[in-house]
């Protein structure tokens, strides 16, 4: 309870919304609040969860990476092609990470060395990396991965219903949260996002930090690509097409400011779960796909609108309090 009270306003709201979504889903369908169903539907947003972690860091420094889902697809294709060519799986996985890291590095170099806006750069590389994935695989699909690996994507933590990728995502979320909220490096991201010029004058290595974050985003997308490939036992060039929107929707709904300098990992993670639960609840009552798309769109708009409104209301309340209109008991 105390931990809950210590959370900033928007995160608390998100916790409430997650509970409401859970209960709402339970009211809508008796099949919703079963361990099995919750296990299925959380597994469904494993990749979004992973990519949302590094996206949170990027958006906090006022950058964005729209190419994450394409890097996922490219790494999935690399993994599949190498595996099909007889490369041992650990090496193929390593190669996927290398490719993901390089893709992130290219994004980072274009942004930091050439001073291009990351929005434009990563729209470009979104197409580039997806194109490369198609070059590698065409419309082929590579399947038949060893069961030990597909179990990693498909299975649950022994003795529980928690999907392994979600357990992995949770561990990485904790690591990311500690790095962001409890290390000097993490604090420096807020400084860069809030005021880059000031950050630079205070001696922060803005370019190097951003470059590092893009590489991390690439590596995380590679991890998501590996998870996706094993989860569906299928490497295809079109894997996870359009997932970048889900990632960005979650990060923004999580209260991370699109203008940088504000947000938390907890918020982003809660938002991933919230969107996933809403989607899952609507799916189980057979709401059509068009409506689902509309709901995701509305959430995306709301995710920018609502935290802004909440921040304004809070600011107004604080001003009133400062004026001394309220006396604390």
């Amino acid at each position, binding site marked *: 309870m105390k931990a809950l009270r210590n959370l900033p306003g928007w995160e608390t709201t998100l916790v409430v919304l997650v509970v409401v979504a859970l209960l709402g889903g339970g009211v809508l369908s008796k099949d*919703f609040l079963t361990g099995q169903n919750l296990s299925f*539907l959380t597994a469904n947003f494993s990749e979004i969860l992973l990519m949302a972690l590094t996206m949170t860091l990027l958006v906090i420094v006022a950058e964005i990476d729209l190419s994450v889902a394409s890097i996922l697809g490219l790494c999935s294709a690399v993994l599949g092609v190498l595996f099909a060519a007889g490369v041992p799986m650990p090496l193929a996985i390593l190669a996927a990470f290398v490719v993901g890291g390089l893709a992130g590095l290219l994004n980072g170099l274009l942004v930091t060395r050439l001073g291009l806006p990351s929005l434009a750069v990563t729209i470009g590389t979104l197409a580039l990396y997806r194109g490369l994935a198609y070059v590698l695989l065409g419309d082929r699909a590579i399947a038949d991965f060893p069961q030990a690996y597909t179990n990693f994507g498909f299975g649950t933590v022994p003795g529980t219903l928690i999907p392994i990728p979600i357990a992995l995502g949770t561990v990485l979320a904790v690591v990311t949260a500690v790095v962001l909220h409890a290390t000097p490096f993490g604090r420096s991201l807020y400084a860069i996002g809030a005021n880059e010029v000031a950050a630079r004058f205070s001696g922060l290595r803005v370019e190097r930090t951003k470059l590092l974050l893009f590489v991390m985003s690439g590596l995380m997308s590679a991890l998501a690509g590996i998870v996706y490939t094993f989860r*569906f036992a299928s490497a295809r060039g*079109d*894997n996870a097409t359009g997932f970048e929107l889900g990632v960005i929707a979650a990060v923004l709904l999580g209260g991370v400011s699109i203008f940088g300098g504000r947000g938390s990992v907890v918020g982003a993670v809660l938002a991933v779960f919230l969107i996933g639960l809403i989607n899952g609840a609507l799916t189980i009552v057979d709401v059509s796909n068009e409506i689902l798309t509309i709901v995701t769109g509305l959430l995306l708009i709301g995710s920018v609108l609502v935290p802004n409104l909440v921040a304004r209301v809070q600011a107004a309340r604080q001003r009133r309090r400062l004026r001394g209109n309220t006396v604390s008991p």
Partner: protein
Amino acid sequence: MKKRSVLLSALALGSVATLAAAQTPALKKGLKITLLPKNINNPYNVIETSGGTEAGKEIGAAVKIVGPSDAGASSQVSYINTAIAQKQDALVLAANDANALLPYLARAKASGMKIVTMDSDTAVSGRTLFINQANSEGIGRAQVQLLGKLINYKGDIAVLSATPNATNQNTWIKWMQEELKLPKYKDMKLVKIAYGNDDDQKSFTEMQGLIQAYPNLKGVISPTTVGISAGARYLSTSPQKGKVMLTGLGTPNQMRAFVKDGTVTAFQLWNPSDVGYLATYAAAALVSGQITGKEGEKFKAGKLGEYTIGKNGEIIVGPPYTFDKANIDKFNF
């Protein structure tokens, strides 16, 4: 004495018959069946699933149609999971990817759900039955039968195919040649197999070439949707319109104008609605225990009649469906 034995054996036969009848359980009422097409906005899929709805009404099953709006490899997975969570009795799907769905279908099977694929199969391990629109022999033979009727079993004929190495086309052509060996086709002569490479312009030119090169040409079979429409476009402006019969495999939307202006009398494809209808009956028969999916088992599928399960759990809907002026407006795909 004799009379009595006849009576007795009649009685015995009767009881055997009732026993046999009792061994085939009736279709269960109130079954919950999920239809999962490749994607839900494609007109072909809409017609296909409408057949499933029709079958559901006939057998008192609750049929729901769900599906993604894109035909991505993994977009169907969450719908499979949802069907498991909803404890549906059967899942009828047209798979977007033969392999991506396998672990999820295995999970669905383990939860007790019956899996039937239609149109687009998964690996055999993923499902119990596969409802296939038509088989190669059926398609090949039916094309010749249709053309034979159209030209009164007389005259030169040609084939306008796709590419020389298209496996499905070549198999169909092989069956066409088998059918042509039957005595009733003794006055029909296959003079040329032309290849339009599934390219509109090339098919157009090839059609033109056929008509100019063979003055006794009475009919052309184009077992490819690209070839038949390009061929029809050429024929519609040629003096041979109405004299050379063109048939083959095409879609109603593509061929509608040519059927209405008299260029083409009849062509074939399958009726997607029958595919969904049969798949739903098959799913219900599986759940009700009428069949288990073994080769040779038989079951009844409403208006389509009785079906026998073939090799690897495959069931063929039947010979291709013939579209003509009378029925083409009932289809939109």
